[in-house]
C-alpha cells in the first residue's frame, strides 16, 4: 500500500532568526473562508465610517491680498508655486508647500487683473487687466533663498503692451510662443511683438474667456457674452465651430487626457462636457451647483475636474458623471471666482471674494506624506471594498453624506421640488396625448439652442 500523510516540519514554516521576516502562506480557496460576503460587507461599512472620520480636506488659507481674487495661474514647471491676482491689481507668487506665504509680488497693474497665465517653460508670466495693459514678467527661479521668510521680492515687468479696450482673459499656447487675450475681440500675441499678431472679431459682444487645447497647439476655445462657445483654429481666419447656448459660459477647460473633449462652466449652474468634434449635444451635463459656475479646472489625470461657483462652494466632479463626488465650503469663504487643480492631482486651490486663497485636499481622507507599501495596499483595499458595496443602503447613507450650508440646502430642495413638479406635469401631458406627439428633450440638448457652422 502507498501512504502519505500531512507532516509539517517546524523549520519550513517558521523563521530562522529574529531578524528575518515571518513566513506567510497563502491559500485563496473560498471554502476556507466561510461567509466571505458578509465579512466583506462589514469591512466596507467600517471603511466608509473610517473615511468619514479621517476626512479633513482643508489644509490652509493663504492671506495677503487686499481685494477679492480674480484669477490664478499654475506654473507647469514648478509644482509648489501658484500665481494669484486680485481685483486691485496685486499679483503674487505663493509657495503652497510648507510655508504658504507670498514669495514674490508683481506690482504694476492699475485696475483689476482679469487674466493670468504662465508659459509652458515656466519662465514668462503674462497678465492682463481692465487697465487695457498686457504685462509680461519673468518668473523668478526658485532657489534656496526662498526659505528665508522675511524677504518678499518684487519685480519689474519685462514688457508692457497696451490695447484699446479692457482685457478679460488670457491664455498661453502649449509648447509655443503665442498667447491669446480676450476682450472686445480675440487677439493672438507673440512675446516679442507689441501688437497682436492675429485678431478674430465675432459680432458685437466681448469674449469672456479663452483656453488653448493641450493636445493641438493651434486650437483654442473661447466663450463670449452673447452665450456662444467658439472653437478657433489660429491657422484659419474665422471660428471653426460655434455653439449657441441659452446662458453664457464663464469658463472652459480642456480634458488633458482626452484633448478633444472640453467642459464649459455655465451661468445656469451646470457644467457641460462637449466632444469638440461633435457639438449638437453635450456628452454629459454635470448638475449640482445652485448658482453660476465661475471657474473650472481639470485634474492632470483627466478623470475629474473641480469647479468654483458663485454659491460659495467648490465641487469636484467625475469627468463622466452627472453629480459631484465632493463639496467643500466654509463659513468664511465667500463667492469663489477661480479654482485650480494642482499638477500632482493632490490639492485643489480656490480663490474667492474674501481675499483668501484656500488649499484643500482633492481626496478628503487621503493620508499625505510617505506611505508604506502595506498601508497603501490597505487603503486601496478599503477603497475597493467600499466601492463594491456603496450601493447598499446602509453604506450609501454614510458615503453620500455631506453637510451643506443652509442656503445651498434650501436652494437644492426648492429646485428639486420644482423639477419634480415639472417632470410630473410633462409625464402627464405625454400620457394624455397621442403617442409620439409630445417629445421630451434630453438634458444634453436642452440648453443648446443651435450649432452654427
Amino acid at each position, binding site marked *: *500500500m502507498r*501512504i502519505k500523510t500531512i507532516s509539517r516540519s517546524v523549520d519550513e514554516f517558521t523563521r530562522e532568526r529574529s531578524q528575518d521576516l515571518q*513566513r506567510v502562506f497563502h*491559500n485563496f480557496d473560498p471554502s476556507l473562508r466561510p*461567509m466571505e*460576503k458578509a465579512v466583506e*460587507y462589514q469591512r466596507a461599512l467600517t471603511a466608509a465610517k473610517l473615511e468619514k472620520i479621517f476626512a479633513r480636506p482643508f489644509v490652509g488659507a493663504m492671506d495677503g491680498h487686499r481685494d477679492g481674487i480674480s484669477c490664478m495661474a499654475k506654473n507647469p514647471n514648478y509644482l509648489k508655486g501658484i500665481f494669484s491676482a486680485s481685483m486691485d491689481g496685486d499679483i503674487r507668487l505663493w509657495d503652497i508647500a510648507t510655508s504658504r506665504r507670498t514669495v514674490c509680488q508683481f506690482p504694476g497693474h492699475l485696475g483689476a487683473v482679469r487674466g493670468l497665465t504662465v508659459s509652458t517653460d515656466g519662465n514668462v508670466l503674462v497678465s492682463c487687466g481692465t487697465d487695457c495693459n498686457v504685462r509680461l514678467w519673468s518668473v523668478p527661479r526658485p532657489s534656496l533663498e526662498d526659505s528665508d521668510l522675511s524677504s518678499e521680492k518684487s519685480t519689474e515687468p519685462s514688457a508692457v503692451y497696451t490695447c484699446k479696450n479692457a482685457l478679460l482673459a488670457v491664455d498661453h499656447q502649449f509648447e509655443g510662443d503665442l498667447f491669446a487675450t480676450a476682450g472686445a475681440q480675440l487677439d493672438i500675441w507673440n512675446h516679442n511683438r507689441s501688437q497682436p499678431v492675429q485678431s478674430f472679431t465675432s459680432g458685437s459682444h466681448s469674449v469672456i474667456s479663452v483656453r488653448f487645447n493641450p493636445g493641438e497647439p493651434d486650437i483654442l476655445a473661447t466663450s463670449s457674452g452673447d452665450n456662444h462657445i467658439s472653437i478657433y483654429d489660429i491657422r484659419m481666419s474665422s471660428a471653426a465651430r460655434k455653439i449657441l447656448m441659452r446662458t453664457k459660459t464663464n469658463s472652459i477647460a480642456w480634458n488633458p487626457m482626452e484633448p478633444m473633449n472640453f467642459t464649459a462652466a455655465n451661468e445656469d449652474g451646470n457644467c457641460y462636457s462637449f466632444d469638440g468634434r461633435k457639438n449638437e449635444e453635450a456628452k454629459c451635463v454635470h448638475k449640482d451647483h445652485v448658482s453660476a459656475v465661475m471657474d473650472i479646472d481639470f485634474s492632470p489625470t483627466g478623470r475629474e475636474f473641480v469647479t468654483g461657483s458663485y454659491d460659495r462652494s467648490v465641487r469636484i466632479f467625475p469627468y463622466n458623471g452627472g453629480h459631484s463626488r465632493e463639496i467643500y465650503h466654509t463659513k468664511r469663504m465667500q463667492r469663489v471666482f477661480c479654482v485650480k487643480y494642482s499638477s500632482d492631482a493632490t490639492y485643489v486651490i480656490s480663490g474667492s471674494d474674501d481675499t483668501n486663497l484656500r488649499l484643500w485636499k482633492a481626496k478628503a481622507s487621503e493620508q499625505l506624506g510617505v506611505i508604506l507599501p502595506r498601508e497603501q495596499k490597505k487603503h486601496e483595499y478599503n477603497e475597493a471594498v467600499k466601492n*463594491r458595496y456603496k450601493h447598499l443602503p446602509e453604506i450609501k447613507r454614510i458615503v453620500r453624506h455631506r453637510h451643506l450650508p443652509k442656503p445651498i440646502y434650501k436652494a437644492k430642495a426648492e429646485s428639486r421640488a420644482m423639477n419634480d413638479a415639472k417632470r410630473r406635469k410633462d409625464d402627464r401631458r405625454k400620457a394624455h396625448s397621442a403617442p409620439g406627439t409630445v417629445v421630451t428633450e434630453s438634458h444634453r440638448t436642452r440648453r443648446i439652442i443651435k450649432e452654427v457652422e
Partner: protein
Amino acid sequence: MEVALEDNNLMEKVLPPDEQEIDVELEAKEKKYLRGEGANLESLKDKKLKTQLASREKLYGKSAKAAAKIEKWLLPASAGYLETEGLEKTWRIKQTDIAKEVDLLSSRNQYDIVLPDFGPYKLDFTASGRHMLAGGRKGHLALVDMMNMNLIKEIHVRETVRDVAFLHNDQFFAAAQKKYSYIYARDGTELHCLKERGPVARLRFLKNHFLLASVNKIGQLHYQDVTYGDMVASIRTGKGRTDVMEVNPYNGVVALGHSGGTVTMWKPTSQAPLVQMQCHPGPVSAVAFHPNGHLMATSGKERKVKIWDLRKFEEVQTIHGFHAKTLSFSQKGLLAAGTGSFVQVLGDSSGGGHSRYMSHPMVKGYQVEKVMFRPYEDVLGIGHSMGWSSVLIPGSGEPNFDSWVANPFETSKQRREKEVHLLLDKLPPETIMLDPSKIGAMRPSRRKEKPTRGEIEAEKEVAIEAAKSVEMKKKTKGRNKPSKRTKKKKELVENAKKTFPELEEKNIAGKKRRIGEDAAAELPTSLKRFARKN
C-alpha cells in the same frame, strides 16, 4: 507543442494529451475561484451600466484564471492519500500498519492517553488545529498544545462537565458544568459564570459572529455575544430536551436534533425555526455538517446514517448497519462515525457517495464519546470513556493553510493582531441566514400583491363595523323622522357589505338610466313611443 491536422479541409489544433489534462484541471480550479455563475446582463437597458458591469465580469474571469494558475506555486504541500494494491482493502488497514509506513513526525500523532478516572471525554480543537481542549465528565479540563504535546493547563472543577468549547482562540474556553456554564482563561482562571443559560447540554461557538450558542436541559437555545456579554437571543424551541446541537460552518445556522426524529435549524433573530426536517423515525443521535455547507449527515437510533443535501433538503444517501453516537466531517469531506468502541471513517468516492474508507476498532472498554477531525492535519481525535486517542486518517486534512485565516505556527504577536482583526470583522447576528451569498445581492422587486381573500373579508368586517357605529346627525325642522333615519342607516350598512365592483355597477347603471331618459326627452312627441326603454 501543437500539431495541426487537416481533416476534410478543416484545420484543427490538437493539443497533446497531458496538456489537455492540465487544461481540464485548470478549468476545474477556475470554477472554484469563480464562486458561482456570472450575472445576467441581457435584461439591462442602461447601456452605461451594462458596459461597466460587463468589464467587471471580465475582470472576475481573469482573476479566477490567475488564481488557478498560481495555485501550482503558492500551495507547497499536497494532500495525503492511502492507496491499496491488489486485493487489499483500505478499511482493513490497521493503525499499526500505517505507523510502520509513515514518517516519524506523523507517527507522533498516533497515541492513546489513558485517564480512566475522569469519565468520558469531550474534545474541541481551535481553528488552526494547534490546541486541543479535553473535558472529562467527572470534571477534568485539560488544554494541550498539540504541536509539542505540551499540557498547558489542567484544572479539576469537581463537578459534571457536559461539554467544552474554545472561544475565538486558545486564550479562552467555555465549559458546560453541572448547574451553569463557565468561561475560563488559558491559565485556568474562571472569568465568567453564565447563569442565565441554566444547565447546558451542548456548547458551540460561532466564530464569525462571536456568538456562544448553547442548548440546555429544557430545550432552550441561547445565543450570547462574548465580546460584550449581551444575550442576543433565547429561544424556546418547544420540542423538548435535546443534546444534539451542531453549527453549520458555511452559514452559521445552528441545527438541533430532536427525539421525534426532526432536525430543526435556527437563527438568533427569529423565534421560529428556519427549517424543520423529518430525518429519522426515532430520535436523532448525532448531526454533522460538511465544511462546504451543502451536506449534512444525521444518524438515528434505528441504525442508519443518512446524508442530506441542504440545497434541496433531500436525502442523498443512507448507510445501514450502525447507529453513530457521534459524527464529524473533515476538511476534505471524510465522515467519521463513532459507535460503542468502534470508529468508522467513510470516504467520498467520486460520484458514488460515501463508502467505507478506514476503521479503527478500540478495546471494548473504551466507549467512544466524541470524534472530531483535527483541522489542517490528517488526524482524527477520539474522546472516549478511558481518555482520548488520536489516529491517522490520510487524506482528511487540508494540506495548505492560509496564514491570514488560521495559522498553526502563530506567534503571540500574530495572535494578538489576528484577534483585533477578527473583532473588526465581527458580523452582526442578522447576517445568519440559510444562503449567506444573498448579502449584497439584489432583491427582486415585488409588485404590490393582490390582497388575499382573508384580507378582503377582514377589511369588509371593519367597514361594516364602522358603518354600524356611525352617529347619525339629528336633523331639525321636521326632517328627523325615525323611519328615514333607520332607512339611511340600513343603506350605509348595505353599501359597506357590497364589494367594490357591485357598487360600481350600481353607479354605472344609474348613470345610463339618466342618459337614456335625457335622450328620450329630446325626441319629438310623435316618436316618443319608439324610444328605447331600458
